[in-house]
């Protein structure tokens, strides 16, 4: 790509923390503004360009009426990048997918529940084809910049496919299992520089599972370290609900979700 590529940011169901992280990455890489031409970024600008090559989509698709605008972005953009866990995996929003949604709506909106349109939250890739994803809740600003560089080079961005433990060990953190807690590090995709274990908290899986995770045996490790079945499930469904439910469906021979 020789000319400055035009890029646009869109957001669906999310906290906009990933876009905020994009703004933050300017603090470290002001030259980003030289490298790309941002034509749409509602959180930060009023100009609304409609002519763009790369669309970054933040947020999950969580109601039927989100689908048309998402498809419209796909029509326009040469490349669609899922920005952050909500777009990449469905993210935190998918916690509710394990509940009865009618009941969830009533719980939150009482007798006005029917005013609000919703369905199980899903990643953007369940609605349209996405060309790349930047995982994480929120995204890692260095990874965002790495991805932009790959796109500028005309290359498909590549995610690390090794587990978090690799990065965690290289940082010489005390393994949380040795500190008496538990961690999803062995089955979760690295790339965040093991920021959570580094700050003393267990990996919650916001970057998604590695290819071929040995979940069965990790569950045994969790049990060995005193987690109940409920606690294990809670751990596995903070960010990974959509992936886990897909695997359950596949495991039970049920058809994959429609999208």
């Amino acid at each position, binding site marked *: 790509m020789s000319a400055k590529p035009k890029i646009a940011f869109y957001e669906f169901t999310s906290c906009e*923390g990933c876009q905020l992280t994009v*703004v933050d990455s300017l603090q470290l890489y002001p030259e980003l503004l030289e490298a790309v031409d941002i034509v749409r970024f509602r959180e930060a600008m*009023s100009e609304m360009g409609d002519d763009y090559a790369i669309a970054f989509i933040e947020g999950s698709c*969580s109601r039927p009426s989100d689908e048309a605008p998402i498809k419209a972005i796909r029509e326009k953009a040469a490349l669609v990048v899922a920005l952050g866990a909500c777009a990449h995996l469905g993210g935190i929003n998918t916690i509710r997918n394990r509940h009865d949604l009618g009941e969830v709506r009533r719980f939150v*909106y009482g007798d006005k529940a029917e005013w609000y349109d919703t369905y199980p939250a899903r990643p953007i890739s369940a609605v349209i084809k996405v060309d790349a994803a930047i995982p994480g809740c929120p995204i890692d600003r260095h990874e965002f910049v790495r991805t932009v560089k790959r796109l500028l080079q005309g290359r498909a961005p590549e995610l690390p496919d090794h587990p978090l433990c690799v990065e965690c060990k290289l940082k010489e953190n005390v393994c949380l299992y040795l500190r008496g807690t538990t961690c999803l590090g062995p089955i979760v995709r690295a790339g965040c520089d093991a920021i959570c274990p580094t700050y003393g*908290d267990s990996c*919650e899986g916001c970057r998604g599972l590695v290819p071929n995770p040995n979940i069965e045996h990790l569950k045994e490790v969790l049990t060995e370290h005193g987690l109940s079945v409920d606690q294990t499930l809670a751990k596995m469904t903070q960010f990974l609900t959509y992936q886990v439910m897909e695997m359950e469906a596949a495991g039970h021979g049920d058809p994959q979700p429609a999208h």
Partner: protein
Amino acid sequence: MATPNLRIDVHHVTRVEGHGNIVVDVQNGQLKQCDLEIVETPRFFEAMLRGRPYGESSHITSRICGICAVGHATASLRATENALGVVPSEQTVLLRKLNFHGEMLDSHILHAYMLVAPDLLGVGSVIPLAKSAPEVVLRALRMKKLAGDLCAALCGRHTHPIAMTVGGFTHFPSREQLGELRERLIAMRPDVEATVELFTQLKLPAFERDTEYVALRAKGEYCYIDGEIASSDGGALPLTDYRKVTNEHLVRHSSAKRTHHMRESYMVGALARFNINFDELHPKAKSAAAAIGLKPKVTNPYLNTAAQVVEIVHCSEDAIRLCDVLIKRGLTWEEPVKPARLSGEGVGACDVPRGTLFHNYVIADGLVTGANCIIPTGQNLSNIEGDMRALVPTMLDRKPPEITLALEMLVRAYDPCISCSTHMLNVRFE
């Protein structure tokens, strides 16, 4: 010459967090409709918390909002701690306050420089500003970076903090880190002064409408965490009585709930805090207020941004003080305080950048069974609409784009965080 008919339909206000639309309908000079519509997807956070281990609450609710994530996490932790009888250590309280200043600075700088300043300088965003006034943009980025680094040193990162947990922290900055942050905060003073200077020059629109102001208040400090709920109309209530202040109800055009207290609506946020807690501001912040021309009680909502600038001065100075205190005390790697019980109900409240935030949990056997979060922007929505209803009739002789801009700037002045505000609800505790 009055405009007999006017239709304004701003589809997705820009430079605010989340999705909101402004709809104004004037027929024959009569204001028929004047709404701020919240079209954000409902996210059902309260429902998502149910059945999950209490330790996850602060991490899940920090995902309500990427901008005031530290605020949500803190309010959530305070609610859980109150429910489970956890009294955090003095060091924890100090670190949380310092962390809060980091977030307050980050958010206010973002709002003042990147979201509001473009309006005042007549451009659409900071991007053209980066060309026309690079020193202003670089200053903002520089200050924001320090705010972010402050949070990162304490809790790993500002958006969705990591090291904050029930009863304390799981990671601590080193003495050297604190010392370095302190030096950098001191070195930032000229940037803070330049910010005050910038906002003494920029002209914010004139518009007065007296309303009720609500903020947290505590003796001896400019309160951001805990305290009591104070109203400019007089009186204060303990945090556990937050429902008597918020009185939530739903309206059709919004996925966010509305609130009212003594009057039809009230305002929370920097301006409300300024009006209620002015006496507790750092002296330098008081001088900054004088320089900008702010004196309580301020009733022009556009000046919320100016109040934020005053808070930038306060927070950076108080952060320096907190660093000094922490360095002097010496930091210890404390284990988080363990809960005294695994069941109970608790309320946590913080004054986050956009105003007062409440979290309220019921916990049984370590699992959350009921949750309620009331977000500042939700409390402000009725007040914004009240302002709009007062403002539009005074402007009917202007051109529609001018009216639209004035309305957009008004909404933006509140620094609304619309994605946050769709998480409130009336909760049935089971």
